[in-house]
């Protein structure tokens, strides 16, 4: 149960006891990392495309967590359109539901639905709305109100323990989201039940809507808080797919403890004028801005 599946660049649809991490030999690894980097850029391009299409969206936070979702869905999670109704699938619950664009783009790429569906985003009667709902294949839970993902994930991870199942549960939280007390209630329960099959990832982009998180309601020192709440903590550059891969590979960080990854990210990552800018929290690019952004991302691709 302590062995996380790690399938760099090659998804397995059924759960494989995969103790042999040596398969990550040099060349495979390099190819895979390159592929992941390409995917990150292509995801970012699509995120912007559908935000512009919907004339709405959470741009900055979708771009900050793109690499995390990329690595999760392409290399970590044992989940696919084929096994999505299997009770053994891994679960990913996106607590920061407002960054639904990142999730939808990645789910489309995974084949959960035709990417074309995303052209209906936020339109009348479309289920591709501004937050994840189970009406969209691949989505585990309806989120959007912050502070709900972790308690639900605790329930899901607990069910795995009860049923002696090997699936893992992952949830992604924003840093501005952390003051919600429901998170800390769930953090206590996860430690109490020794849920080492649970991994929370904090998209620590240091910004929320009003201001930098430290000025709104600081949660620093973040590692100390989680440690004091009984979790095992690792920090990582959350925009570095290789570093992310490594850290997911080392799950669970400690046996008998839930794991939290503090992923240091850049809000608006990948688009120069969006990076670290408050106003891009839910900013929608103008035509010019959109073109510049796409250009920058295309350049990044050629420079890979």
């Amino acid at each position: 149960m302590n062995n996380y599946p790690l399938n760099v660049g090659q998804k397995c649809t059924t759960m494989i006891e995969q103790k042999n991490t040596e398969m990550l030999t040099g060349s495979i690894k390099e190819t895979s990392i390159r592929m992941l980097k390409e995917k990150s850029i292509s995801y970012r391009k699509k995120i912007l495309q559908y935000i512009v299409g919907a004339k709405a969206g959470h741009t900055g936070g979708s771009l900050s967590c793109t690499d995390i979702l990329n690595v999760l869905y392409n290399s970590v999670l044992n989940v696919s359109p084929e096994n999505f109704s299997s009770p053994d699938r891994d679960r990913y619950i996106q607590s920061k539901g407002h960054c639904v664009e990142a999730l939808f783009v990645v789910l489309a790429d995974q084949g959960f639905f035709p990417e074309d569906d995303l052209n209906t985003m936020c339109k009348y009667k479309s289920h591709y709305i501004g937050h994840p709902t189970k009406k969209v294949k691949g989505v585990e839970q309806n989120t959007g109100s912050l502070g709900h993902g972790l308690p639900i994930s605790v329930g899901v991870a607990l069910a795995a323990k009860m049923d002696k199942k090997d699936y893992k549960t992952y949830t992604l939280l924003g840093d501005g989201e952390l003051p919600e007390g429901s998170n800390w209630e769930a953090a206590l329960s996860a430690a109490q039940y020794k849920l080492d099959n649970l991994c929370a990832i904090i998209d620590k982009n240091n910004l929320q809507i009003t201001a930098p998180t430290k000025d709104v309601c600081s949660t620093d020192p973040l590692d100390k808080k989680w440690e004091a709440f009984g979790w095992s903590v690792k920090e990582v550059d959350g925009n570095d797919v290789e570093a992310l891969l490594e850290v997911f590979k080392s799950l669970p960080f400690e046996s008998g403890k839930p794991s939290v990854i503090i992923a240091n990210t850049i809000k608006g990552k990948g688009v120069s004028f969006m990076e670290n800018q408050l106003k891009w929290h839910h900013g929608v690019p103008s035509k010019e801005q959109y073109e510049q952004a796409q250009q920058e991302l295309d350049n990044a691709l050629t420079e890979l």
Partner: protein
Amino acid sequence: MADEINTKSYKANLEIFSETLQRLAVDDTNIVAVTSDSRGSGKLVPFGQKFPEQMVEVGIAEQNLVGVAAGLASCGKKVFAVSPACFLTARALEQIKTDVAYSNNPVNVIGISAGVSYGALGSTHHSLHDYAVMRAINNITVVAPADNFETAQAIELAAKTNEPVYLRFGKKAMPPLKEVNDDVFAFGKGRVICEGDDVAIIATGETVYPALQAAARLKEKGIAATVVSMHTIKPLDTDLIASLAKKCKAMVTVEEHSIYGGLGEACASFLMQLGNHSQGGIWSGAFKIIGIPDEYTVTGSQQEIMDHYGISEAGITETVTTLLNK
């Protein structure tokens, strides 16, 4: 009749809840109870002893209680999330709204010691708003069983139904409404306990019994009452209400809840709009909602509070008599 209520031989509905859950858990390891330092008040201590693996304790954290319950339910567990109704439907309301109802995770949300059951513990411990808010939230059935029979039936159904349900319980020992329970219990179908054409008394939960007592008093005065246990507040049994409206001169609703937003208003708004329904013409009878008024609730025991507001044998009798004499 009044003293019978206190007789030891009757059991609280909550005990039946616990017994039923234990019975179901023997064959079904997916039955799970989730508590927030509430297993004592939920009568679940024996359940916890017999099925320690099927009992989840989250501590005093009602939001987490419901979130965890939703997660468990999404993995196929048949979850009963048990906590005082006052905390569940206020502290954890958003979790009920989004994690249970909107996400359609089939949790059975069990609100215990509801209404003014906690008596002199005061308004922090009373739930007078839960019917109102649960009715206004989509995708959750709202049920308040009146006696042990309805409780056992409701819990069995809830364990089977793959849908969110809110079940509301008091604390009192409850006598049976009928000597022989020959009716089929189903959510959304009111139970007619006794029949009479002068007045229809539509009650729910622990108030059905005093309504039945009132019917006996009224009979002595020559007033024939129908008494309905409207255990399901939502969806409302509108067919039954419509047929009673046709038959009876007056209708009185009874609930241990604010007079706003609960069973009474559900009936009133249905009847007011009946003219637009296929069922028939416009209602012209007398109508009265009995419940807790919108004021600082009087202090005292549950019984004292209920008596104070006329949610009692005497109070219901008087309200009906006055209404019919108008």
